[in-house]
């Protein structure tokens, strides 16, 4: 049983890590604690449902549609909600992201109805048996895709010129402005990336369960993941996601299915008390 729980914990944790990575990219770039990240994941799942069931697009095109729609959603959120509030208190901006998630949920329920939708994709849904261990192909693909996305975005930030400008913007907005960086464009790009990563995570969550607004609660596990891993750390978000996935599965299997939230948020509280900058975050670097 241990290996089985370990596998599903890692697989789910990879998806949480992906959503958390998107959250961390937005937070690092624009200092916005985006409570709508869970709803962005739900939107991704519904965009996929729309593309596959309503528009009848082939799977590859449907994925592209979902990515484009999520990116647009992120950019619009930044232009119309975040940018006008530049310089306002963090609380005002947090309230706006909470409002955004409520509005998105209501919009989905009006448009698609409150009942869940089944996401039918050509992804394999079989099981690979290795001894006692049953490996769901879908879990495996979700995990591998998540890791591929994390690697691609990691390489993008580390090795490309635009990635460098995004890291510079995250380091300091005014410093980026005086250096000739188009800070607004970089911030929009960060919101697009954040929403796309959430959307891909939402696609897999919807595929593993059923597509409904209730997926938001799972998408929001990205928040404890990011805080545990370290708000300012990109690898921290991924590690935090994996930890949350593992904790959820182990607590669910060995203690009680209802205990997972208690254990996750208990760890969150512990981290905030003893190491508020998170496992991989660092305290403010450098001299003044």
């Amino acid at each position: 049983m241990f290996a089985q729980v370990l596998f599903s914990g890692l697989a789910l944790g990879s998806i949480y890590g992906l959503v958390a990575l998107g959250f961390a990219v937005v937070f690092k770039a624009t200092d916005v604690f985006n409570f709508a990240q869970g709803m962005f994941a739900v939107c991704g799942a519904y965009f996929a449902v729309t593309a596959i069931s309503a528009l009848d697009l082939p799977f590859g095109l449907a994925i592209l549609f979902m990515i484009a729609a999520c990116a647009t959603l992120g950019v619009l959120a930044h232009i119309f909600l975040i940018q006008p509030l530049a310089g306002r208190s963090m609380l005002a901006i947090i309230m706006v992201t909470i409002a955004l998630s409520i509005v998105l949920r209501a919009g989905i329920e009006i448009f698609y109805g409150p009942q869940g939708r089944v996401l039918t994709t050509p992804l394999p849904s079989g099981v690979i048996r290795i001894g006692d261990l049953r490996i769901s192909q879908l879990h495996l693909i979700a995990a591998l895709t998540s890791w591929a996305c994390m690697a691609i975005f990691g390489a993008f930030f580390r090795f490309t010129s635009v990635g460098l400008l995004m890291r510079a913007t995250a380091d300091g907005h005014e410093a980026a402005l005086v250096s000739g960086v188009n800070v607004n464009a970089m911030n929009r790009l960060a919101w697009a990336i954040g929403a796309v990563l959430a959307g891909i995570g939402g696609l897999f969550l919807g595929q593993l369960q059923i597509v409904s607004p209730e997926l938001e609660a799972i998408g929001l596990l990205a928040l404890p993941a990011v805080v545990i891993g370290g708000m300012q750390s990109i690898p921290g978000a991924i590690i935090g996601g994996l930890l949350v996935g593992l904790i959820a599965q182990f607590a669910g299997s060995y203690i009680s299915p209802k205990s997972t939230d208690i254990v996750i948020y208990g760890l969150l509280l512990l981290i905030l008390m003893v190491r508020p900058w998170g496992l991989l975050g660092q305290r403010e670097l450098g001299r003044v």
Partner: protein
Amino acid sequence: MSHDTILSVENLSVGYARKGLALDDVSLTVPRGGIVALLGANGAGKTTLIRAISGLLDHHHGRIESGQVRFDGRVVNALPPHKRIRLGMAQSPEGRLIFKNLTVEDNLLVGAAILPSAKRQDGLDAVYALFPRLKERRGQSAGWMSGGEQQMLALGRALIGRPQLLLVDELSLGLAPLLVRSIYEELKKVRELFGSSMLIVEQNAKLALGFAEQAYVLDRGRIALSGFAADVAASTAIRDSYLGTERVGNEGAHA
């Protein structure tokens, strides 16, 4: 306006939200290839003027109430900072504002991003030739460097695009006088190499007046005095106020 002028500030008034005017009808010109010093006490409006020129007022909730900033013949009031930099302006800001978590070389590469990719290595080489210390430290996180090295980095990041106009705000802040002198020597080389014009904000008036050809003195948002640097240095008003020879104890004298 003359072809020989790279920057002209014309009757500029600037205000910040819920405060009075920070600049009141300020005019100033920087000749092409010239070095101009901008002097004044704390709070006189020097940094506000630099922000109005580089386009950073928005970021500080300030705005131009009237007048204009003309760069290379073109009114740039409405242009965001990144577009002004692409026109050939660059800034070494007050407090340096380097990217603390990036390496020295990455800091410079951010400044080089306005260049076509084939020219970025040349830009790096040119900056490393001016400030060899930056080359030694290129892999280091910028936040861990000394104040002098950070100042060199801020200048290098501004210079890597070979700007036509370099704005330098409070270069000497917190640095040893000897180091400040050597950095100014490098700036002289920059003008010879790149032909850049410069507008220098400096607390140390004596130093700035020795370096610049022309000077303006700001006093509470207005230009109080301007002219050739030597004449400004000789004026009793500036000596009393900023060179610190003898502080006149009459607070109401300017009012």
